[in-house]
């Protein structure tokens, strides 16, 4: 009766796979027709960068401390420092998106919360030069939706702040 068992097994597995496929047919297609419908991006989407401006004083947050330039693994950030009003300013700030590996290390390292990643993700260009973001473009990127991650926030997530010490009795 070995062949009967085998025949039953074959029939059963065939029926199983056909029923799975048919259940797929009844489902709604999961395709998102991209240029017409855009999918919702995750909160921490890493796409392109923006330099932030302090909302109260209206000054650029970046002090040109060179930390992001030094930590960048692919060395795509470069800046020229300028001293003004007792603090540093980035006179020039370039970020080559073409070489960027989107590791977010510059955002994590920034002590001034000056650089952030935004959700503007359709970045393909025909000309490679257009991928090199200058300071003006980075500042202008502020108006897009941020991925809500800035340096201090991400450092808190990685090492939660210690509870304030108990007041001495």
């Amino acid at each position, binding site marked *: 009766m070995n062949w009967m068992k085998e025949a039953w097994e074959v029939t059963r597995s*065939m029926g199983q796979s*056909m029923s*799975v*496929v048919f259940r*797929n*047919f009844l*489902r709604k*297609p999961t395709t998102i*027709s991209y240029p017409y419908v855009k999918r919702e991006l995750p909160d921490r989407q890493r796409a392109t960068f923006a330099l932030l401006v302090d909302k109260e004083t209206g000054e650029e947050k970046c002090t040109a401390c060179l930390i992001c330039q030094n930590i960048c693994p692919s060395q795509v950030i470069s800046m020229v420092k300028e001293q003004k009003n007792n603090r540093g300013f980035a006179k020039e700030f370039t970020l080559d998106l073409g070489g960027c590996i989107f590791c977010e290390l510059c955002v994590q390292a920034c002590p001034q919360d000056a650089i952030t990643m935004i959700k503007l993700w359709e970045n393909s260009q025909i000309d490679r030069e257009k991928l090199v973001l200058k300071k003006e473009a980075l500042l202008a990127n502020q108006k897009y939706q941020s991925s809500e991650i800035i340096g201090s926030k991400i450092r808190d997530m990685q090492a939660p702040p210690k509870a304030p010490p108990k007041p001495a009795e």
Partner: protein
Amino acid sequence: MTDLIFSLAILAGILVVVMYLTLLERKFASRLQSRIGPQRVGWPFGYLQPVADALKLLVKEDVIPSVADPKVFNLAPIVVLLPVLLVFAVIPYGEDFVLADLNIGVLYILAISSLTLIGIFMAAWSSKNKYAVLSGMRAVNQMISYEVPLVLACLVPVILAGSMNLTDIVAFQNKVWFIFYPVLGQLSFLVFLISALAEANRMPFDITEAESELVAGFMVEYSGMKFAFFYLAEYAHLLAVSFVAAILFFGGWGGPILPSGVWLASKVLFLFLFILWIRWSLVRVRLDQILAFSWKVLFPLSLVTLLLAGIWKVW
């Protein structure tokens, strides 16, 4: 003269239908995999996609390998397509709507549709390609083994109706379709369907063009319009199988209220979709398994159905 116009109209109609069957397969397959399928060319259902495909294949470069035998190589696609198209000459599309009402319709269909094998082997042999030759040998193996059960399964309706004429067979099923004959109908339809799928080189028996092992099998060296001929032949064969199955087992154009052509078309569409469903759910079978299944299971089974049909007829 009217016959000529009629046959040309049927030929053109079949070719257009076959073109759109490729779109139907793509749409249906994508729904089975919860995708949408072709959509952009001819918004919103992709109804211009077959036209775009045909145009693309027409303007492609026609490559003939330098080692190939050019005469046979060029002749093979025509030899594959022609017999399949000839099958449609005898099929009754509705009441009093048949091009050639042959007395030996079933025999004619069986004889002429197995001629495609010669075309396939010509294509495989003249390409002088290892994959093509392997695939050609597989095709011969498979066709020879499945021809026998196919013929025997087709004989069951012939015996019951007492005629080889397709119109007579349909007329005989006017009360009860052959598929509803207890045990006999279902068994013979099962044998017919399996061996017809193997004849059409269709999943799960598509070892001749097994994409993952033989690239594209016998048509690996073909490009452009010749490649399209093979594809047309494949889908036309599938359509022919659906037609023959609908006529032999599902009562042809018979059915209440609606006009006869609509009944036949809906049965054919149903069978075609069923074949597609099988294709997209089952996996490919090995060559030795295919041959063993044919000779050890299908052949005895078809003999049993033949015996049952004889007993039914006499009793």
